[in-house]
């Protein structure tokens, strides 16, 4: 078990270094400069800037310097937000994204799993059809549409919460609900699929034939099996929700990480973009590891050492 975790952590580090390098190369080798603005600067100013930031060095040297600064946690400064270290920028956005994303994750699980389970237990009946129709709709509606609608109804019309913004105590609710509802739809569909399949399995039939109580069958035996595909999905979902959503943060004007993801790439602010991509990769690695451990615990047939 410990050997498994260690080897996965080493793999994770390789993944993070690869993500940092690819992010750097894509941005640096693409057209555009981190210093470009609507007003052109004289050529000698550009040369000075390139020299100050080492951008006149060969691209491999630049990449190495950046990787070293990340590896030693001596984080570089942002090119766009001058005078701010990328670590400070992320430290400001992270709590916001974790709050909104964490709440959205809970909403997705607490709403999605019961809805999917209820649908599976009434497979083919009206309740199943209605739940799955709602879930399909939820999967299809983009947050770009759902966010403003939720903001208009519960913010501008009913005045339950602020229509957008950050700072008051309830400001996390509407964005979390927007993100949570969309993810809940996917969770519900996966739960239903897993549970339907599990309920048809041989050992469940055997248990039923032995006269085991139906509630016991679902809760103890079928659900464990049904969780496996769902848990696989929850790992990346958690990483995605916690690292912020560009659309939801724009619609609700939240100071989270999601907006930095897009603006750092657009402004060629490659130090900030690398830091964000590295953080996202780290979250994915961690949650995938947790998923593997959880699955081994739920299903003894999976033996970690054999993977």
């Amino acid at each position, binding site marked *: 078990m410990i050997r498994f975790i260690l080897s996965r952590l080493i793999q994770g580090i390789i993944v993070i270094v690869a993500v940092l390098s690819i992010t750097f190369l894509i941005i640096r080798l693409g057209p555009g400069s981190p210093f470009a603005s609507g007003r052109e600067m004289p050529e000698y100013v550009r040369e000075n800037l390139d020299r100050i930031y080492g951008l006149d060095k060969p691209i491999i040297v630049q990449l190495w310097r950046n990787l070293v600064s990340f590896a030693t946690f001596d984080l570089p400064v942002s090119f766009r*937000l001058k005078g701010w270290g990328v670590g400070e920028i992320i430290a400001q956005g992270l709590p916001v994204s974790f709050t909104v994303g964490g709440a959205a994750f809970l909403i997705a699980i607490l709403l999605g799993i019961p809805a999917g389970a209820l649908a599976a237990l009434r497979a083919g009946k009206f309740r199943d059809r209605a739940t799955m129709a709602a879930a399909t709709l939820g999967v299809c509606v983009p947050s770009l549409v759902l966010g403003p609608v939720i903001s208009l109804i519960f913010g*501008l019309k009913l005045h339950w919460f602020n229509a957008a913004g950050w700072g008051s105590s309830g400001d996390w609710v509407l964005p979390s609900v927007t993100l949570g509802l969309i993810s809940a739809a996917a969770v519900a569909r996966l739960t239903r699929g897993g549970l339907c399949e599990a309920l048809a399995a041989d050992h469940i039939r055997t248990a039923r034939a032995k006269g085991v109580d139906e509630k016991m069958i679902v809760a103890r035996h079928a659900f464990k099996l049904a969780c496996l595909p769902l848990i696989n999905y929850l790992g990346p979902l958690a990483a995605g929700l916690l690292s912020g959503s560009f659309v939801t943060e724009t*619609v609700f004007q939240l100071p989270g990480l999601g907006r930095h993801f897009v603006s750092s790439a657009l402004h060629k602010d490659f130090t900030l973009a690398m830091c964000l991509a590295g953080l996202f990769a780290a979250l994915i690695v961690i949650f995938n590891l947790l998923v593997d451990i959880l699955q081994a615990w739920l299903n003894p047939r999976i033996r970690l050492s054999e993977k």
Partner: protein
Amino acid sequence: MKLSPRLILIPLLAAGIWLFHQSRQDRPSRIQVADENQVLLIGNGTEIESLDPHMVTGQPEHRIISAVFEGLVGPDAVDPDADAPGVAETWESSDMQNWTFHLRKDAVWSDGTPLTAQDFLYAWQRILSPELASQYAEMLYLLKGAAAFNKGQTKDFSTVAATAPDDHTLQLTLEGPAPYFPGMLKHYTWFPVPRHAIEKFGTMTQRDTAWARPGSLVSNGAFTLKDWRINHYLSVVKNPRYWDAARVKLQEIQFFPIDNGEAEERIFLDHQLHVTDTVPLAKIPLYRAAKPAFFTQTPELSVEFYRCNVTRPPLDQAKVRQALSLALDRVALVDQVIRSGHQPATGYTPPGAHPQYPPLKKLGFDPERARRLLAEAGFPGGKGFRKIEILTNSSDSARTVAEFFQESWKKELGIEVGILQQDWQVYLASQHSLNYDIARAGWVGDYTDPLTFLDILRTGNGNNDTGWGKAEYDQRLDASTSVVDIPQRMKILQEAENLLLDELPIIPVYWKKDAILIRPEVQGWRASVLGHRCYKAISLGPYQPLAEMP
């Protein structure tokens, strides 16, 4: 009778929702709290890059930096484009080339350190130092010797014609007479910076130090920096040490970096902002029709135009460019497509650049003549004209305008046009490397004089980006900088603009208007074509509800 649990649950749930709904209705809005405390809440567009006046180039930065810093000259309370005393109490010049500024003796930095003429010299040396690599140092090139120092041709700052005979006097010599010079000093590139505070964090020319951050920024404006959370808000509070503090009525200003027009409008209607930065383009026609009291539109000193890459045939022929311009019905574009109240351009320099410089009336819609010119250039009916591409940034509104061009040129001239959209930084790089046929662009004036627009089309200017250059044009601009007589100077500049409009390396499209939403409580807010704001003249009246949209 046995009560089903559902019969109990549903009314309970409904009652719960109703109670919750009631409890949320009495929350005071952010605006009500802010009104009571004289806190102005402003939408400020994209997040600013820095508060260091030498490290930035944008408008959102200008609006915050001019609240926390003050130059020699400040915006006037009634007309912010006019000049009022700032750190300088008075100034004079007999020939518009040699200027003397008399600084007020009670001017201090926000930490109590006296503010002297030396602070200005330090600031100008800093922004002009090649080691700092300030992207906006060109704004100071009017100062004699500034360009040579900035380009590293000399290391001796005393070659720049700015001296301080004593702590409260500054003497400046310009490259030529410039009657608009005091107005230019309202721009942040000319503001003083505190040597004692900067050098606590590094050397004079060190970039990316923390001196301009909350807790360490020392400034000299009507307000001082209190807090700055990235992408969240930036707040400035009244500076009790400011020389004119008695006139400052606002206790605090909070700037919100809202980069999405729809979200900003929703936040405004939700009573969280006094003034917005923009109005969503799609909503402007609706507001223009409904005319609610909180919607206003004012001209800005800004022109939207399309660059032609004159190094690429067939756009190297002036007749082709004229034909393209004549085939555009700018009135139809503005009134029926954009519908945002902009003014169709009949020249290049927008109205308001100078009281004695009326906009030229040279551009118009004449498809007949356009076809004739295109035939003369060798492309009758568009035959033999290669497919050209319009480059724009990746916004929907830019695409809409480009599509109008595409259709007009196809219909009137019979030529094929494609549209290429690129992300902002890439789009800028493509223009600068002349890697385009026709590109959408715009220019915002830095000071009220036609030169701020005409200058960028000089041969080889960093913002020219068309490949065009004409010695006659450059000579006219040079001549204008040595003439003191205003009518004569305006005449020379007009000749230059006429030359430009004959050759059309750029095709002007419209002169912009600025649209904002502003609450009725805000008093003393005045429009400015340059985006100047006199914050000390602004105050908040008692709370008023917003008028309903009809």
